């Protein structure tokens, strides 16, 4: 049939000639190619020591953010847990007491906030669902571990460092 697009290519299926049929020239040519690859630049990135550059929209480990005064933004509304298709997020809310205003921004906060990194699929829906801009997937690759229970990350691993500590750390390195 006539080709309407004009892009159809009919491949000719010629029977192999003698040199093609004895395979050996083709094999030797192939071996030459693979041998030349021994002297090429290696593509390996030595991962733990060396890290590849991540793209702009890379989604890594979660971090729970603080506001400009160093108070935790999360109000434990649970929208992230609801939006999570992998059911990886769970939390227990608590009410802010007198004298804790410098710690939490709103009257309610997450006393426990856990993400199961084995369940998480890093889709970023929690980030989109959060009305308080409290959770972002802007961290590094989640590291490997030996036990399943160690993959359930609590607030100790997720919450951003307080500004004061961050500055202390910067001062120490400078």
């Amino acid at each position, binding site marked *: 049939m006539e080709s309407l697009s004009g892009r159809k290519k009919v491949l000719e299926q010629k029977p192999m000639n003698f040199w093609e049929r004895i395979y050996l020239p083709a094999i030797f040519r192939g071996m030459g190619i693979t041998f030349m690859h021994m002297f090429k630049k290696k*593509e390996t990135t030595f991962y733990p020591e060396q890290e590849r550059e991540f793209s702009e929209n890379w989604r890594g480990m979660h971090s729970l953010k603080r506001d400009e005064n160093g108070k935790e933004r999360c109000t434990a509304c649970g929208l992230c847990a609801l939006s999570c298709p992998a059911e990886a997020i769970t939390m227990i809310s608590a009410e802010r007491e007198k004298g804790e205003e410098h710690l939490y921004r709103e009257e309610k906060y997450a006393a426990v906030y856990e993400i199961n990194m084995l369940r998480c699929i890093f889709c970023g829906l929690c980030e989109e669902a959060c009305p308080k801009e409290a959770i972002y997937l802007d961290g590094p690759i989640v590291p490997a571990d030996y036990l399943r229970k160690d993959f359930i990350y609590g607030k100790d691993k997720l919450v951003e460092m307080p500004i004061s500590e961050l500055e202390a750390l910067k001062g120490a390195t400078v």
Partner: protein
Amino acid sequence: MEIAFLVEKLLLVTILFVATLTVAAYSTYAERKVAAFLQDRVGPNRAGPFGLLQPLADGGKMFFKEEIIPSGSNKWLFIAGPSLALLVSFLGTAVIPFGQNIELFGRVIPLQVTDINVGILYIFGVVSLGVYGIMIGGWASNNKYSLMGAIRGASQNISYEIAMGLSIIALLLVSNTLSFKELAEQQHGWHWNIIYQPLGFLIFLVCAFAETNRMPFDLPECETELIGGYNTEYSAFKMGAYMFAEYINMFVSSAVMVTIYFGGYNYPGMDLVNGALGATWGPLVGVAVMFLKIFAFIFFFMWVRWTVPRFRYDQLMDLGWKVLIPLAIANIVITAIVITVVDKL
């Protein structure tokens, strides 16, 4: 039989055994390195400098893995399979001469465990026994994939042994001996058999790839179709034994090819070196040359593995029966005619 003779043989066997094990262990390392280099990677480099302790780490891993014997399997044969594969692969080294006679403590010691006058027949017997390890293991697993792998292994080995034997007959017409020692001695001073038997060598080489179940003829284990083939059900050290047997087979077949086609321990300028170094150190240089040649062959095995894709099963049989066997027969006829004509002249 004197004690010294026994000690001498015992030492030789022990050294050979350890050397074979070491070569096989480091072949696994070399295989991964060669594969990596051919694919623009760096290969194992974490265990020790340049990853040199990798074989030890792998061996340790194999030992400490859980050993599973499937409940539906035939237990004794399941254990016998890998044991046989490993045992038979070691047997081949017994007849290979690794060097000239060496003078040590006033004794002349041949660097060959035994020089039986039918060495080539012995090697053939041992090689054809090798397939039993695969067959028994595959059958005893009571698994369809294993059985398929075992059947493929058996038919492949039987098919390629014929062509291998025929290619050797042409060589025997030239050399008139079945003893490995004599074969090696005959090739002294550039009379390497590869020059007289290039076609025979090519056939032998292809068959050696098939007999050791190496790429492009690794149909018995064929991961993509048979999920590992005959060793699907094997775990821990039994799996390791099969892998080890494969690498030892590679070492033995490289040694055989070097001995019968590439001059064995002979090298150009051998007499000069032997004269200069004496009867103790001279032969050791020969041993080093022999091992260099063997390593070159092992590298070749790996190089081919990471270049050529696996044959389809019918192509494999076509190549064996329709190409290699007629070629080998033609080679015998041509060799016989040439020898007769040259003798009459």
